[in-house]
């Protein structure tokens, strides 16, 4: 059913997918051929539909010049270029009109007030109306004529798409094009599409626009002389090479990358340090330990979206609690360094309970004999901690430290909700803000500004993927090594 209606809507890929899904389900649960598949199928199907296929789609997009101005398919682009390519006549003539229908086709009633000529025009014909048969309003604009049904006022809004972009017959190569709901201008086509050669030709001066192989029709070798819109064309690795060779893309990328690494390392270091400190302090039997523990875990238990937004309010320059408390007047999110400090501070608050929890667990796991032996050998508590406890802890927790690094490397929610990646210098058209990490930068490129570039964003996504995968695989191998020891 769904598969059928998908194909009916010309969504062949999704339709085919659904069809295969149905067959697979029937095959798996009605026969006894494959028992593992009975367990797998739902999970695998969900993964393929909503995780694997988007990833493949992203990989594909990274090979295209998929960006604002090059969103549509080539056929659609050709159609739009044709429709947009007209110029007003030399006198800039315009007429008052009335929108309506003629024999149920969209039509306009045109009033050439100067020459006292009135006519109905559709996209196929022009029907002259004698002056005596029209009713005029006080501005001499025709309101009704025989054979013409004006559109009721309440339908004007929804009618826009039917009328704008339509060409109503005027005379010779000139036609009428709507400018708003009651004015039409006289214009003529400037470009014509030549099917065989796949080029656009300017009818007036004969200039030829050729497919430049990168998603636009271009005149000569001037890459700015292109026709809008373009289409999404395969440009293979250009998005990648651009990132590494073109300084306009390379420099912000390097800057963002460095900050991402700094941010993730600083977060891991600070959260681990504070968590460990608290775990050590609360490791001894202490009155009310359970109570302290519950309080320390609170930041972790709060839904993080809420906490980040709350912190956002606290850093507010004028009214925020932080400035009130410190007696300062710092514009936290307007200055690059303060914004960075704020981001790390908030993330410390969000993250230290995690390391507190895992570090207290790990402390219990270290055999007390080791520390006792060291004490007998005459080591003081500081030495014991530095030489015995810490190295052991680091070894136990290193997979978690790496996992935390990988997680914070892509900690989109924090950056997006707290600073939005800013401060950024939008006047210079800068996309990368001071606190943008790679992932929020990519989001900004793909969806943020008015010039969206999905192709480039996809390319960066893949680079991030490779980086994170490398880090995580390293972490996993490390934990495997540990397992084989124990």
């Amino acid at each position, binding site marked *: 059913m*769904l598969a059928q209606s*998908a194909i009916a*809507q010309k*969504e062949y890929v*999704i339709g085919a997918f659904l069809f295969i899904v149905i067959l697979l389900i029937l095959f798996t649960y009605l026969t006894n051929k494959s*028992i593992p598949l009975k*367990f797998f199928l739902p*999970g*695998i199907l*969900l*993964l393929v*539909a*909503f*995780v*694997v*296929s*988007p*990833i493949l*789609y*992203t990989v594909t997009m990274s090979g295209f010049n998929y960006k604002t101005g090059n969103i549509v398919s080539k056929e659609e682009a050709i159609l739009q270029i044709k429709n947009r390519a007209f110029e007003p006549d030399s006198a800039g003539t315009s007429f008052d009109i009335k929108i309506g229908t003629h024999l149920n086709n969209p039509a306009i009633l045109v009033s050439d007030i100067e020459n006292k000529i009135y006519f109905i025009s559709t996209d196929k014909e022009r029907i002259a109306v004698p002056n005596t048969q029209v009713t005029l309003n006080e501005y001499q604009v025709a309101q009704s004529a025989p054979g013409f049904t004006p559109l009721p006022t309440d339908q004007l809004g929804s009618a826009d798409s039917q009328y704008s972009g339509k060409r109503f017959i005027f005379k010779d190569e000139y036609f009428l094009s709507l400018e708003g709901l009651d004015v039409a201008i006289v214009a003529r086509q400037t470009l014509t599409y030549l099917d065989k050669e796949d080029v656009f030709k300017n009818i007036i001066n004969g200039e030829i626009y050729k497919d430049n192989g990168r998603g636009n029709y271009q005149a000569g070798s001037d890459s700015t002389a292109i026709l809008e819109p373009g289409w999404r064309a395969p440009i293979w690795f250009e998005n990648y090479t651009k990132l590494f060779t073109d300084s306009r893309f390379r420099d912000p990328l390097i800057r963002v990358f460095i900050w991402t690494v700094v941010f993730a390392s600083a977060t891991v270091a600070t959260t681990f340090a504070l968590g460990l400190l608290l775990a050590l302090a609360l490791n001894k039997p202490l009155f009310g330990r359970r109570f302290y523990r519950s*309080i*320390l*875990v*609170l930041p*972790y*238990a*709060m*839904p*993080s*979206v809420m906490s980040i*937004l*709350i*912190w956002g*309010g606290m850093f*507010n320059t*004028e*009214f*925020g*609690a932080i400035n*009130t408390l410190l007696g300062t007047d710092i514009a936290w999110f307007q200055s690059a360094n303060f914004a960075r400090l704020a981001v790390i501070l908030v993330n410390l608050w969000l993250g230290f309970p*995690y390391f507190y929890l*895992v570090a207290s667990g790990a402390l219990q796991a270290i055999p007390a004999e080791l520390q006792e032996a060291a004490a007998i050998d005459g080591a003081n508590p500081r030495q014991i901690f530095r030489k015995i406890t810490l190295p052991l802890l680091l070894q136990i927790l290193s997979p*978690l430290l790496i996992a935390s690094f990988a*997680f914070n490397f892509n900690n989109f*929610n924090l950056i*997006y*909700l707290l600073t939005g990646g800013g401060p950024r210098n939008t006047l210079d058209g800068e996309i990368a803000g001071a606190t943008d990490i790679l*992932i929020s930068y*990519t*989001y900004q490129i*793909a969806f943020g500004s008015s010039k969206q570039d*999905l192709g480039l*964003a*996809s390319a960066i*996504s893949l680079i*991030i*993927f490779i980086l*994170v*995968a490398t880090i995580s695989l390293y972490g*996993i191998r490390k934990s495997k090594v540990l397992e084989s020891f124990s």
Partner: protein
Amino acid sequence: MLFALFPLYLVIISSFNSSGSLQITSFVPTEISWNNYKLLFNNPAIPYLTWMKNSLVVAGLVALISVVIGSASAFAFSRLSFKGRKPGIQLLLLVQMFPAILAISAVYVIMERVQKFAPGIGLGTQGGLILVYLGGAMGVNIWLLKGFVDSIPKELDEAAKIDGASEVQTFWLIFIPLATPVLAVVTLLSFIGTFNEFILARLFLVDMESRTIAVGLQQFIGGQYSQNWGPFAAGSIIASIPIVVIFLSLQKYIVNGLTAGSVKG
């Protein structure tokens, strides 16, 4: 200790402050007013209860369904032998590392197309959002649950096999009862994770009425910290209470789950 409590304390006193502004005149509460709370429940412009209900429904369904489906897959990965088991696990791990946020444009396009022929599960519907969440939750859950299944002694299902149980029976009668506490924890973790999810929900749920609490409150505050602070504070407190209670009461189990799996998101 102070560092941990300060923001929470601040939100609580703000929520009882009748002026509803961000400005703190005193760090000691001078009054207790329920205005902000009343506003949340009576103001038709903030369908707070609907948001809360949406969040609970979406997160609840995702958590339950994903754990059932995920544990079936985890069981198969851990216990059944078949071709491509090892590459399957590795592939699962690799796929999971792809930053999900970056695939959202693709998810968006796909769901936009689905919308055309199946309006019930397309863009802008909670059904569609739940499906996408389920897909996203699979990787983590299968991985987490596989670890637990591995730790259940093999002798148990071998004994069941000798007694003539099929794989499906082993799964339902041996594995599920044994793993109930673990399943509960994974369910809760996915519930909390989904409750917290914000980007996809924001992209998907455009209608005021269909939003989840995270999106609703974020849009409500929308940079206008000074104006809506009081109701926002009250709203986030109420929204946090169930999560915090669940978390604190099951702390011990959740921590075990966390160290086995990943970092909270």
